[in-house]
């Protein structure tokens, strides 16, 4: 059941975390941690901020709730540690 409209037809601002842009993806980056040298270039370049460093042992992880599959990480990784895999399960 949809929420009722409000009399002034105002809307509340949303926020980036509220929109799970991972649904937009048709390919996903998959990282081979054995190749990762922890330079974290991918973290810096990801336009979504969807990559983060793994705690303690280091290395990276992709947040697939938000990753849009743009492939910048795969393209820029100096070790070619990422492959872009088809999204279809």
């Amino acid at each position: 059941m949809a929420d009722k409209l409000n009399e002034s037809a105002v809307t509340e601002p949303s926020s980036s975390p509220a929109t799970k842009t991972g649904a937009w993806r048709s390919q996903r980056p998959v990282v081979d941690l054995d190749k990762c040298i922890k330079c974290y270039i991918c973290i810096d370049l990801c336009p979504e901020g969807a990559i983060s460093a793994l705690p303690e042992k280091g290395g990276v992880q992709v947040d697939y709730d938000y990753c849009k599959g743009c492939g910048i990480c795969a393209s820029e990784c100096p070790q070619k540690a990422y492959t872009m895999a088809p999204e279809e399960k």
Partner: protein
Amino acid sequence: MMPRKTVVEGSMAVAEAVRLCRPQVISAYPITPQTHIVEDLSKMVADGELRCEFVNTESEFAAASVVLGASAAGVRTYTATTSQGLFLMFEVLYNIAGSRLPINLTCANRAVSAPINIWNDQQDSVSLRDAGWLQLYCEDAQEIHDFQPIAFKVAEDPRVRLPIMTMMDGFVLTHTYEPVELMDQELVDSYLPAYKPVVKLDVAHPLTFGAFAQPNTYHEIRYMLNRAVMGAKPKIAAAFKEFNETFGRDYAPFMEEYRSEDADVLVLSLGSVCGTIKDAVDELRTEGQKVGLVKLRMHRPLPKAELRKALDRASVVAVVEKDISMGQEGIIATDVKSAFAGHDGPTVLSYVAGLGGRDVPVPDVKKVFKEAAAWKGRQAPDDPIWLGLNTGIIPEVQ
């Protein structure tokens, strides 16, 4: 050169027709869903297919002002817009009509803000009905294509000298591909000769357009404007007749009557939704229902006598329109009721439908016919009926 019978986007059907009419100045500002029309025209100019001065401006107010000035200088002019763009032109459009300038404007009907909505309804053009512009509504791409030379011919007639608006539903017609029989340049040239202004800006013979008019003359000048709008009616009829003969079409000038001869319940509507309504009429007719459609083509001037004649046979007329005068009812419904004021006539119902691009499918139209039949012999309600209202999301009155 496009093949003459082909599937084209509605916007291209308009652009191609305008090209064939040889306008000399076009000025427009892009606004969804009119954009393809002006993009197509500007590409034609850039490619040398249309010899015309294409003036890009910073707003619709400026675009309207450019065509006003160009038309006053005595050339054939064209512009296109919609919704907020049309409204930004508002005072200029009144100036154009008051200055008796035969500008042709295509309105790609779109809902008005607030809230912002880019989809189709007719609130925009209907809101300009009082300005002194002639107004014609189109059902499909063939009509909006064909009506361009008719529009220029009527507007530029020295006995008319009025601006004219042709309407096509935004997205529904502008962005839909459908078969169109495109006109031949030779035939368009034979039907629509070069523009010969009666008066124009000319340094050799200085004249002032839109001059100051005091209370002792303004009243009469406005009377003359109204007289011209009313007087355009037979010229519009003649222009359609000549068009039909030249191009082999079959347009009735003021309205199209579909299976209405023996109809007991009629819907009166305008624009592309009439196509959907025709399908609904056919389905109900196979079920034995005596229903029909009157599609209003010309809204200004308002063809009152013809409306009475077309609608009088029915017990109930449901006016289905995509606009409303807030605090009153559907604007076309009010006009239809005014045609019957002082006459005996059918019960006229006002239906507000499809605002902001809300779809009006065949089952909804059939519901209108069914409901309307129940109003036979009863007095119409004061308030309009809203088609397809989702009451679940409407909060209670405070």
